């Protein structure tokens, strides 16, 4: 893309502005998510690829979209009502108000995970601290190594998942690593074992590094990190976004077996308990964004929360994406590129965003 020098690119663009250029697809007014407004509904905005890399989008986004990101080498997302609602909730966060709980719900393929990723990017641009759990169902259903907790008897630690989470946290908050997270200090002594401890007034990054260095301490470090972030958010030193995909799995079932071969409940997992604390009212200045995943049947009592619905495409939204795919040569056949083809795609996909994208990928 960087073949022409920047100056000539500018003149090129100004030249096209004077002509009534027909845009290949509907672009939003700006790529900065904080500038998005109602006028930008149904339009695509771009997330810079390096931001996508930093935020580990490959792991968070739905696999099909991640592949598209890699193929097209750009991340263009449609601005839809649910994202604007989430942005509005972001703006309502303040130090005097307890953590706002937002739950994204909706049918399969309507954009819950994608909206979560957009929210994570917005928090990144606004220098919020991001605590992003890729999939809570991983913790409850994918059994890696299991350890009994030394902090609380009866609790189960998940060292490998904790290490993965800490790595993910470190990756996503690299832009704040040297600034906020180093400036903010621990509020108490943390005695991990007889030999290891993190004393008071040490940067928060020490907790993360301790967890990464010794996996058997990782789960306790996660808990300490969560506690510290809550305290500092309440004091106004940082704004916290807790984004959990499949957050309702915190109240669901697990496949982890205990020593007596019965299944553990989610109450017995320390990771789950640590993240459930974010649903309490004892901290402020943060937003907890979760997704109610239909894969899990659960009875989560996290009232009062704001349920935001993700819906199927409108004709305008589907058309905007269709134009984008046309422009990117993603659509292969002539029939798919035609108006009649678009109408067929509407109904074949039943206006479902996931199926629409899949159909466009194969036609």
């Amino acid at each position, binding site marked *: 893309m960087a073949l022409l020098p920047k100056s000539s690119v500018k003149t090129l663009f100004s030249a096209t502005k004077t002509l009534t250029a027909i845009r290949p697809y509907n672009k939003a007014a700006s790529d900065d998510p904080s500038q998005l407004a109602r006028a930008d509904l149904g339009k695509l905005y771009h997330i810079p690829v390096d931001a996508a890399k930093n935020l580990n989008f490959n792991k968070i986004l739905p696999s099909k979209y991640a592949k598209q990101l890699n193929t097209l080498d750009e991340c263009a997302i449609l601005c839809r009502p649910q994202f604007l609602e989430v942005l509005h909730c972001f703006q309502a966060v303040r130090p005097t108000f307890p953590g706002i709980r937002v739950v994204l719900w909706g049918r399969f393929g309507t954009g819950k995970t994608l909206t979560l990723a957009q929210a994570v990017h917005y928090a990144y641009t606004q220098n919020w601290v991001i605590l992003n759990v890729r999939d809570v169902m991983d913790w409850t259903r994918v059994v890696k190594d299991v350890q009994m907790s030394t902090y609380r008897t009866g609790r189960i630690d998940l060292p490998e998942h904790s290490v993965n989470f800490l790595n993910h946290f470190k990756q996503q908050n690299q832009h704040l690593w040297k600034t906020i997270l180093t400036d903010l200090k621990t509020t108490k002594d943390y005695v991990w074992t007889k030999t290891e401890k993190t004393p008071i007034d040490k940067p928060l990054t020490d907790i993360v590094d301790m967890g990464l260095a010794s996996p058997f301490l990782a789960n306790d470090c996660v808990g300490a990190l969560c506690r510290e972030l809550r305290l500092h958010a309440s004091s106004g030193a940082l704004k916290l976004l807790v984004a959990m995909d499949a957050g309702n799995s915190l109240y669901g079932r697990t496949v982890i077996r205990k020593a007596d071969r019965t299944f553990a409940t989610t109450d017995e997992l320390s990771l789950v308990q640590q993240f459930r604390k974010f649903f309490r*009212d004892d901290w402020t200045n943060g937003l907890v964004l979760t997704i109610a995943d239909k894969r899990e049947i659960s009875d989560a*009592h996290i009232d009062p929360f704001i349920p935001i619905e993700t819906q199927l495409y409108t004709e305008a939204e589907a058309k905007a994406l269709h134009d984008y795919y046309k422009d990117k040569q993603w659509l292969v056949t002539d029939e798919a590129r035609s108006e009649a083809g678009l109408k067929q795609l509407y109904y074949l996909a039943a206006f479902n965003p996931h199926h629409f994208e899949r159909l466009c990928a194969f036609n």
Partner: protein
Amino acid sequence: MISTLRAGSSLLPVAGLGRRLNSTLASRMKRAAAASGSYESEEDQRHRLEEQVDEYGEQFRELFINPKRKLAAQLQLERMTGRTEREKYSRADIHDRLAVRRPRSEEMPVDQDWPSVWPAAATYKSSVVPLPIRMGTRKKPEKRAPFKKVGNLELLKIPNFLHLTPEHIKRHCEAMKKFTTPFPPELIQNPSLAESEFPVTVRYSDYLHQGTSLRDPRARVNTIEVKLDSFPDFDEHAKDKFRHLVGSRFNEETNTLTIVTDRCYTRKQNREYADFLLTALYYEALKVESWEELKARNDNLKVEFAGSKVEKRIAELAKKAEDVSPSAVKEFAETWYEYRNQPETPELTRSYEDSVRKLLGISRLVETEKPKPASSE
């Protein structure tokens, strides 16, 4: 053969049996036997027998080459093509057959009084029932119809309801009418009186069978339905206790208790058991036991807002944030109660969202149109 040639010989059929009766020889003999004066004079006869001789002294004998009858093959052809009439012969057992009467059903007029013919339950009699019934299996019913009713044992084995035709029923009802009283006109005018005067509805079913047995085990099932409101002296405690005792047999929407009993052998026993259950439930619900004071929040049938964690949270929220109005809290409480106590539906979730937004002061940015009514996933 000569003995048959008597006074009635002219009435006898000519063909078949009498083929040789018309032969030339036979006619000659008839003429000879007629004895009404010979057709030939004595002189002629003497001449024929004595004088008409050949050189050997033999009499002249007439030669009959063509018999004076049609050959069997020709006759058959004529019969087959219909050029001659077929003779009609009566059967050998004609007298025995005439001695037996036709079945009664053939003489029945169409507008007869059936209840008089079949007044009570009886086995099927094919000669009495004038219906053209067939019954029986065939390998290929389209080629050969099922067996006819005469001598059909299957028709006898099955139960028939010829004693219960509409006309029968009408007459039974007419006969019973003098023992009945008129239907209360108040119940017709005011249908809701039926609920207040007769609160208990009993249901049971009878089953008909096409088979050798009329029994069905399902006939013993007894269902009783009562509305909770029909218990006049039930207070809140009694209603709650009643619902706890009864469990899933209570329908919240219609406020009805349904008890299905089938553990006893007879319907009467099941009915009495259901009556016993109803009585026991009534008295137990009115009682207040000492252990009932141990009832906790967990034992409530519905999750109440008052005393819940949410209420505490909102109270603290109201303390922290100033812009939480009591009306918003009240509306939230009502919506939360609905959302929490009913199965979760999209509509309930949306109304919950509205009340939370009002409570927290975060309004909706975009008014989205109603979602498309597509099939559920």
